[in-house]
């Protein structure tokens, strides 16, 4: 084996990543080649020195407070914290709240139906709020939602941010129909979750809580929506724009 080839394999040799036969060939070569042996020593030295650079342990207090901090971040208490933007966190928490109801995998058709109903009811609610006569009823529905979610341990602030999500409002108040963008999809999901919760559907009505799961599923996979899903949401958007 030539030196050039040996040198290209020295790191693998050092790390024990080579097949036995190749390892033996290199070991044999090293017994008679000072240059390659020197190269191996340098590689060993680099690995040793870099590895020896340990970090200071931040101490027991740090570790003891780590989990409580994670929980705090998950709660609504620090919702205004810029570390984790509020609307996003609000959506995450609501979605997670929904996910707590464990759900079996469902089919696209079921998602479409539930999402469609949820979306339409949400849009109706938005429009209703602009109409004094039915606005009161809609406001009550929102109040019920708030109470339900607060009961689960999340703050008023979170709910307000879900309902007042600027992206949702933007989505439904815009005048020019366009292709659905990522933020629109996200806005749709806001609407979906809020409306499903708002509709007061029971776990049974949601057919094994499918609505929630799929809502969250759609949201988290939103960048990976397949053509059919994208078409469905785009179509919903266009319908909304043309009727308002």
């Amino acid at each position: 084996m030539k030196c050039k080839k040996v040198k290209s394999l020295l790191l693998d040799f050092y790390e024990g990543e080579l097949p036995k036969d190749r390892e033996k060939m290199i070991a044999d070569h090293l017994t008679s080649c000072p240059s390659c042996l020197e190269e191996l020593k340098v590689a060993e030295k680099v690995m040793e020195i870099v590895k020896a650079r340990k970090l200071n342990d931040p101490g027991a207090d740090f570790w003891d407070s780590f989990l409580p901090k994670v929980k705090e971040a998950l709660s609504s208490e620090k919702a205004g914290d810029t570390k984790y933007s509020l609307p996003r966190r609000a959506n995450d928490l609501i979605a997670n709240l929904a996910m707590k109801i464990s759900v079996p995998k469902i089919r696209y058709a079921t998602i479409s139906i539930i999402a469609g109903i949820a979306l339409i009811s949400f849009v109706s609610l938005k429009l209703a709020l602009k109409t004094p006569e039915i606005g009161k009823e809609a406001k009550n529905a929102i109040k019920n939602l708030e109470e339900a979610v607060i009961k689960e341990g999340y703050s008023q602030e979170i709910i307000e941010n879900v309902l007042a999500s600027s992206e949702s409002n933007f989505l439904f108040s815009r005048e020019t129909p366009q292709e659905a963008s990522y933020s629109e999809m996200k806005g749709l999901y806001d609407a979906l979750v809020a409306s499903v919760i708002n509709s007061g559907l029971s776990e049974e009505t949601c057919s094994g809580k499918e609505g929630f799961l799929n809502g969250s599923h759609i949201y988290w996979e939103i960048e990976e929506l397949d053509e059919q899903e994208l078409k469905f949401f785009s179509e919903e958007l266009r319908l909304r724009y043309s009727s308002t």
Partner: protein
Amino acid sequence: MKSDIELLQEFNKGKFEAFDQLVLRHQRDIYFLTLRLAGNEMEAEDLAQKTFIQVFINGHKFKGKSQFKTWLFRIAVNLCKNHLRSRSRKNEFGMEEIDPAGESTSLSSLIAKEKAKELSDLVNKLPTKQRFTVILRIYHELSYRDISRIMSCSLGTAKANFHQAVKKLKAVIEPPGGKLE
């Protein structure tokens, strides 16, 4: 002791204590990983917390195709990548000299410390992919297969990144034309 997967399954069924156990079990690994990747203690803590928040939110999405730890590292690495990208857009300089653990003061260890500092500086200056790979390989002793999964690249690319990085690091301690003592 329950496996990570078992704990995650329990958490997905609504048992929140299982999530706590996962955090307690992996908090050190994740914090030290984000500290080495982000190079800043405050940011590292924030990124480590965010990693577990993502587990909380996306736990149901883990399909068990890899080890839980690999998935967890992937979340942390992606958060760090995004964070560094956003930091570089803002032109913020976030890499601090991380204080290494206290070491003895014998002459040989002082020399080693000096070399280590030099190498550490160079590690911090490596291109992101090479730097991340070095950290995952050397400090967390992950296999190239796991690194390729975490870094979303091929096994060959993971290896190549590591080899390129070590080649650059070798230049620091390799005496020009001379032999190591």
